[in-house]
């Protein structure tokens, strides 16, 4: 950071440097950061505060008329927790996130360890990395639409299963009509979209580990499994935690995939409805009070998780 370079300069030519910096140039710093902060204040901060504000009001559309805004205190929050929907959608989101995250972290660790293993020397790792990262850049809504067609009752996946003899042609599996099918597909898509990204992050972490440690372990005759669990895993723990928490923050924002896959309905019987889909429904039906309350809850969850990330980062710098 420049905080470390500036004092060093000051000791060289104290008066001259300080004068130049503080008198003629500091204002440019303000000019340069102004557009960012103005845009943030107008398009994000003000909307955020007004969202919080709405959460304390009864304010919704009924037919063509708007009811409110009437101040109701914490009434929206009470309704939110009393009717059980929020808890149910939080649970759905958590289940879908975990189902996707477990294979994501397992395969990412495995692949990252393989790609960085000098003795194993994987050929074509550039090709593999390109392929496994690719789903991450695909439009999530198009990807979900694709899976909807692939896994429909008479879709290609069932066709293939039937021709392989894994499924009875008279009774094809209805992936999109079951809770397990929908949640499983959402989790599977999240896994496909994110394991490449995680692999690359973890690879960078592993490559930061002192190679001397592996050489020493090699001489001592430690197997690569032993090396992985005794050297790699403990040393990349900070980045591993970072990956887990940022993925959780991504998880609570889960929207595009379940929204498109289930046409916004969280089929069947709202069992694959995520928190943001719930927010989206309130926004569409113009129930601003309730939408505000859901937003506040989401904000608090995200804030707690971000605080954890912040803690990891500052601890890393202290070391």
């Amino acid at each position, binding site marked *: 950071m420049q905080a470390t370079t500036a004092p060093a300069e000051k000791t060289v030519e104290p008066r001259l440097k300080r004068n130049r910096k503080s008198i003629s140039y500091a204002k440019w*710093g303000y000019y340069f*950061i102004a557009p960012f902060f103005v*845009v943030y204040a107008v398009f994000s901060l003000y909307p955020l505060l007004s969202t919080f504000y709405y959460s304390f009001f009864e304010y919704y559309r009924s037919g063509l008329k708007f009811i409110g805004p009437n101040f109701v205190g914490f009434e929206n929050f009470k309704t939110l927790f009393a009717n059980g929907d929020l808890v149910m959608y939080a649970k759905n989101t958590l289940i879908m996130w975990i189902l996707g995250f477990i294979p994501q972290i397992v395969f990412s660790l495995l692949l990252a360890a393989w790609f960085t293993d000098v003795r*194993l020397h994987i050929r074509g790792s550039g090709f593999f990395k390109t392929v496994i990262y690719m789903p991450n850049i695909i439009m999530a809504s198009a990807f979900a639409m*694709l899976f909807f067609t692939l896994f429909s009752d008479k879709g290609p996946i069932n066709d293939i299963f039937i021709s392989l003899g894994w499924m009875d042609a008279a009774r094809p599996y209805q992936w999109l009509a079951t809770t397990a099918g929908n949640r499983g597909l959402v989790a599977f898509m999240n896994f496909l979209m994110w394991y490449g990204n995680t692999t690359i992050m973890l690879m960078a972490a592993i490559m930061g580990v002192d190679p001397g440690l592996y050489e020493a372990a090699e001489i001592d005759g430690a*197997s690569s499994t032993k090396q992985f669990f005794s050297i790699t895993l403990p040393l990349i723990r900070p980045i591993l935690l970072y990956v887990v928490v940022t993925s959780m923050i991504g998880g609570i924002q889960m929207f595009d995939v379940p929204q498109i896959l289930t046409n916004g309905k969280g089929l069947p019987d709202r069992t694959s409805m995520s928190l943001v889909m719930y927010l989206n429904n309130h926004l569409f039906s113009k129930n601003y009070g309730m939408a505000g309350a859901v937003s506040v809850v989401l904000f608090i969850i995200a804030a707690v998780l971000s605080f954890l990330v912040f803690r990891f980062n500052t601890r890393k710098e202290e070391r």
Partner: protein
Amino acid sequence: MSNTQAVRIRKGRSTLTLRRVIAYTVLILLTLLSLFSFYVLFINATRGHYDIQKGFSFLPGRALMANLNNVMSSSEMPVLRGMLNSFIVATGSAALSVYFSTLTAYGIHAYQFKGNNAAFKFILLIMMVPTQVSALGFISLMNNWGLRNSFIPLIVPTIAAPMTFFFMKQYMESNLPLEIIEAARIDGSGEFATFNRIVLPMTKPAIAVQAIFTFVANWNNYFIPSLLIDNKNMKTLPILMAQLRSADWLKFDLGQVYMLIALAILPVVIVYLCLSRFIVGGVALGGVKG
């Protein structure tokens, strides 16, 4: 060499071979898993409706041009218009976001001013706030300003991109020595000109990575656009995907459905395949220091 040592080395070699076999098998299976859905997509985009209904085939059909023509001439799903709209939004966002976030990073990196550190901390703090959380206030503000069915709310707010800022700040710390700026000053270069003529070219690799990521993110963005845009001619591709899903799709020509999905993802896939090394490298750069 003693006997036990030789045994150990031989044993080591055979376990290495075994590990290689396992590693390549898993990698190939994951490759197939990652690519399979796209393979089916592009195969089925070349087949006609009845052909697709008869069952899956691993070989392409002959209806590529027919599907393409049908999709292009459909007035229900203005896909060309959608591609153009997505392109405008994504390009506009990438340009504004990268330029101003780099400018902000430079402002904090190169100038000592009161509140410098506080500004930096503030941006770190807001980095993790999900956009959905302020959506309600944002949507109602845009409605009040009469900016429904406009690209302004989709492009202008990206000027404040905390992630891009952070990435650029990190990059400048290791790649932009302040001495160069001092030198430019001595040569009489104005501060703003220094940024445009010296800093921007020097940070080009990082700028390119961030521009690509911002482009892709906005090309794919669905949540906010779906709440603000309902005019047929303004719809971006993700909104068309949602429309496709909610349409009575059983009546749709399946060849056209696959063709529409293919058109939505193809541009980004092509860009990705051309620049993959670069993009994958960019992910690693952003990751370690995050």
